[in-house]
């Protein structure tokens, strides 16, 4: 079973990983975007860590709702609303249970990913964060490690695609040949989930 502490660890693991990888995310964002994805997410997840320390929400749902709200209030751009919605909607789908099982979490995360697709109007193959998130959710029944691998593969598979959503879409065919920064950061989020799971003593 996954408790609030697990979800706090997931969020802080994401914050450290985004902090560590911020320059790489920004570098990926330079040729097809505007070179700020890393710094924007770092600002947001730093705020998430600070808020979780201050408020210490007691349920898994409350942890994610708080994290999502922080992202919406601090990130800006498209990443703020999209990542904020992902976490908020996942958190809301978890309800006020003190603990959730992995199956329940997988269902909630799918609800979160669906909400992101609806908000951003993106589908798999559009070269966005969705290309990492959808395979991760599909793989989740096989464990966090499987989800991590699926998300990373999904992110890498965005390289040959032509972007159809977000700022990279303005480049048309010139967006081909670059890995999508949003899919890459989404893979970091899922990898942090696996890290939090490993820390809990199993996958």
């Amino acid at each position, binding site marked *: 079973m996954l408790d609030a502490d697990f979800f706090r660890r997931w969020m802080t693991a994401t914050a450290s990983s985004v902090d560590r990888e911020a320059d790489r995310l920004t570098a990926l964002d330079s040729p097809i975007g505007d070179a*700020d994805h890393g710094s924007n997410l770092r600002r947001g997840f730093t705020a998430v860590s600070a808020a979780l320390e201050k408020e210490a929400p007691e349920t898994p749902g409350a942890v994610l709702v708080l994290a999502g709200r922080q992202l919406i209030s601090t990130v*800006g751009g498209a990443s*703020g609303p999209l990542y904020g919605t992902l976490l908020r909607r996942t958190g809301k789908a978890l309800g006020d249970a003190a603990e959730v099982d992995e199956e329940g979490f997988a269902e909630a995360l799918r609800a979160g990913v669906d909400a992101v697709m609806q908000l951003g109007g993106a589908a798999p193959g559009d070269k966005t964060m969705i290309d990492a998130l959808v395979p991760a959710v599909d793989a989740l029944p096989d464990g966090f490690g499987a989800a991590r691998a699926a998300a990373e593969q999904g992110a890498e598979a965005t390289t040959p695609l032509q972007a*159809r959503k977000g700022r990279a879409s*303005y480049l048309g065919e*010139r967006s081909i040949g670059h890995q999508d920064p949003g899919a890459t950061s989404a893979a970091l989020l899922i990898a942090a989930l696996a890290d939090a799971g490993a820390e809990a003593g199993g996958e």
Partner: protein
Amino acid sequence: MKMLINVAETVVADALRGMAVAHPELAVDVENRVVVRRDAPVAGKVALVSGGGSGHEPLHGGFVGPGMLSAACPGEVFTSPVPDQMVRAAAAVDSGAGVLFIVKNYTGDVLNFDMAAELAEDEGIQIAKVLVDDDVAVTDSLYTAGRRGTGATLFVEKIAGAAAEEGQSLERVEALARQVNENARSFGVALSACTTPAKGSPTFDLPAGELELGVGIHGEPGRERRAMMTSGEIADFAINAILDDMTPRNPVLLLVNGMGATPLLELYGFNAEVHRVLAQRGVAVARTLVGNYVTSLDMAGASVTLCQVDEELLRLWDAPVRTAGLRWGV
């Protein structure tokens, strides 16, 4: 890359502090990142709120004042502001007559303003929204993010701002803003990439002797790269791209806009070429504005925006405006 900054993290806040002391007629909330005209809310007047990433100065904070915006929310460099800023701005300027959000068509701006509109409406503020999408360099289809909002933003903010100043209704101000956008088209070129403070190096490589055609205002590369062209050839290319997309029957407003690092000497020369091409194509120019208005940090290059106007729009364009970045008739 050398920049006149302290550290990248405080660039926007530092600029707002400087703006506050330069323009006491503005109320600048540095912490919450909202720029408001000091006499707001003005009783009975529709309020106009816009905003977007920083790095495009004087857009948007420089267009706050009588005859134009009521408030602006600057985001991080090239990053849209967050809903909290927009809600705060709307609450500060709403007199009860409603607020028009002027939103440039970028995924981030659209999503954040949509969220803000919902939150502001929860607080009892009537919100209308207009989306600016004038850039003909971008393919507009169901499967893309659609055209970018660029130079036409200035026309929308000025003309809708004048209508609001006259006391016109929210419905009418919104309709005028839409009319301006529907009649405006832009095309931009870059001679160099720009450098964001966070990254500290140019956002894309543009070799000497080449230029990017169809760039936006965020340092994202354009659709096509060619060997450097003369000012006259660029004017031909840009106007042709615009006129492939619109056939103005009335006179147009013309904006020849610098991207930040192109001197006025070059912009005026380019403006002469733009006028030459427009005359050849039989397009009458009612008013011309030349300068750095919708910039892209230190990018060299220019954009051209045409907006077809009728008598009403022209009258509103000529109406007095008093802002840091645009000022006439007062």
